[in-house]
């Protein structure tokens, strides 16, 4: 596989950095001293077998774990230099900066327009013209504008599965977040919808940093610039995607990417 992406390290900035992160579901330790870097405006993929902690790690970035009692973080995730896991940091403000796209499309029972405007309204934007502008921009960003512009008032459930997922992406980028988290965003979609979402991610990374959890190694190879391989809650290997897939340093990574287990 020839990597055509040029990674120019001189302009690369660290968007986020995970430092010695432990995570506990109650007393069960799900992440063990995980460290990694998320580069600005790049796609970073998290791969590994089921139960390896990749989704757990992803959900640390927007502190989704705070919604449920008994979860505990230990360590740091620096977002633009600020540790977002600090007790005094409001998870709600974190989520306004780090948005998320889920495994299954989850549009709200509202119109297409209101779905995209949701995060903006939550942030207190009420001005109609500003909302219109940002909704259009987000829908364009999610490559849904042409299909949706004449049916903005229609319920979001009228859209197809792939369109619904792009709507959820529009909702996630409408607030111009620092990072967008994708949690296996194509696992409920057919191959055509999947490739349109992958293309979209390729375009989006011009604007925004992307972190994606995926079960599919092919997908990680296709969309990501960097890949982290996790196993049993530990970060086994983190490297540029083509290096990780072609010249894995660790035997476990070698076994996983060559399909020997997982």
């Amino acid at each position: 596989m020839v990597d055509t992406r040029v990674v120019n390290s001189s302009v690369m900035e660290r968007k986020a950095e995970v430092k010695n992160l432990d995570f506990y579901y109650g007393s069960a330790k799900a992440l063990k001293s995980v460290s990694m870097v998320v580069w600005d405006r790049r796609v970073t993929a998290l791969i590994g077998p089921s139960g390896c902690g990749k989704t757990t790690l992803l959900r640390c970035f927007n502190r989704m774990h705070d919604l449920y009692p008994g979860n505990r973080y230990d360590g740091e995730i620096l977002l633009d230099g600020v540790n977002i896991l600090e007790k005094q940091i409001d998870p709600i403000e974190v989520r306004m900066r780090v948005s998320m796209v889920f495994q299954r499309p989850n549009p709200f029972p509202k119109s297409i327009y209101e779905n995209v405007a949701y995060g903006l309204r939550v942030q207190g934007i009420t001005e109609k013209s500003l909302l219109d502008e940002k909704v259009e921009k987000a829908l364009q960003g999610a490559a849904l504008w042409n299909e949706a512009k004449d049916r903005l008032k229609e319920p979001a459930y009228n859209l197809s599965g792939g369109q619904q997922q792009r709507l959820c992406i529009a909702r996630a980028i409408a607030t111009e977040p620092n990072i967008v988290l994708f949690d296996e965003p194509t696992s409920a979609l057919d191959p055509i919808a999947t490739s349109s979402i992958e293309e979209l991610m390729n375009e989006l990374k011009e604007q925004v940093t992307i972190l994606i959890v995926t079960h599919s190694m092919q997908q990680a190879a296709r969309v990501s610039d960097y890949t982290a391989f996790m196993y049993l809650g530990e970060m086994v290997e983190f490297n540029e995607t083509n290096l990780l897939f072609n010249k894995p340093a660790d035997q476990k990574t070698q076994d996983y990417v060559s399909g020997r287990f997982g």
Partner: protein
Amino acid sequence: MTAQPLKPSGKDLQFTQKKKARELKERVIEFILFLAAFSCVATTVAIMYILISESVLFFQEVSLVEFLTSKDWSPLFDPPGYGILPLVSGTLTTTAVALSVALPMGLISAIYLSEFANSSVREVVKPILELLAGIPTVVYGYFALLTVIPALQWLYLPIGPFLSNILPNIFPAELAGFNMLGAGLVMGLMITPLISSISEDAMRSVPINLKEGSYATGATRLQTALKVVLPAAASGVIAAFILGVSRAVGETMIVAIAAGLQPTFTFNPLESAATITAFIVQVSLGDLPHGTLEYQTIFAAGLVLVLVTLAFNVIGYFLTKRFRETY
């Protein structure tokens, strides 16, 4: 010979002769199940038949126009009046008072229980709330008459004279010992658990996926509850409301005990008035001779009650359909 192995041998074609017996058994079971289901339908049809047939006799004596437009309901007096409007106004007023309590309280407690309360609080509060629904309505009736209405009278005492000076048509100087406000408030308390419980079930069945989608945008619990969970559960919440309305319209003991038994055409909850149900109870308790016009008034009133409830159920059916969401 090559085709032979595919043909089953004669011995395998021996079937038992139990088909008839099995079919008969299934027929019998099916019939028993049918009887159980049919008995409900039959009861409903029988009730409707009696209501309508007795009402037909009633309407041979009393014109439909008088029944629907006259504001005088005094079938037991001389000269009798046969206008249903006072009973309808009493029913609608007590229902409105009850719903003005039960809808907000039921909905708020449902939101609290489904979205805010942690599981240990919910496990204690929910059964207690549902216990409220199990208290006999006659107890609620006496609670209204002996506790709530005296409390209302006490509260009203200082402001009554002042209000009755300004708007004497609406505000009496003193609150009557029977009034629709007290009865309606208690009826509202009685319906609250019903509305809360059904709404909460609807809200809790909203997929976690949808709630997390809202939280992920930075929404608070309240924003998520009001803007995502409530709209997603709309069909269930509306069903709860309609059930609450039906319950209030059909409620008998509380209004019979605490709202007064004088049929008065009024929508003022501060006054006392009789509801359709209260009238039926009052007359049923007396010893009216079978077949008299007075006797038939019960059925005419009962028919109106059934139709009002039916109307709300039909509205509820269409609203529920309109708001049904497929996640």
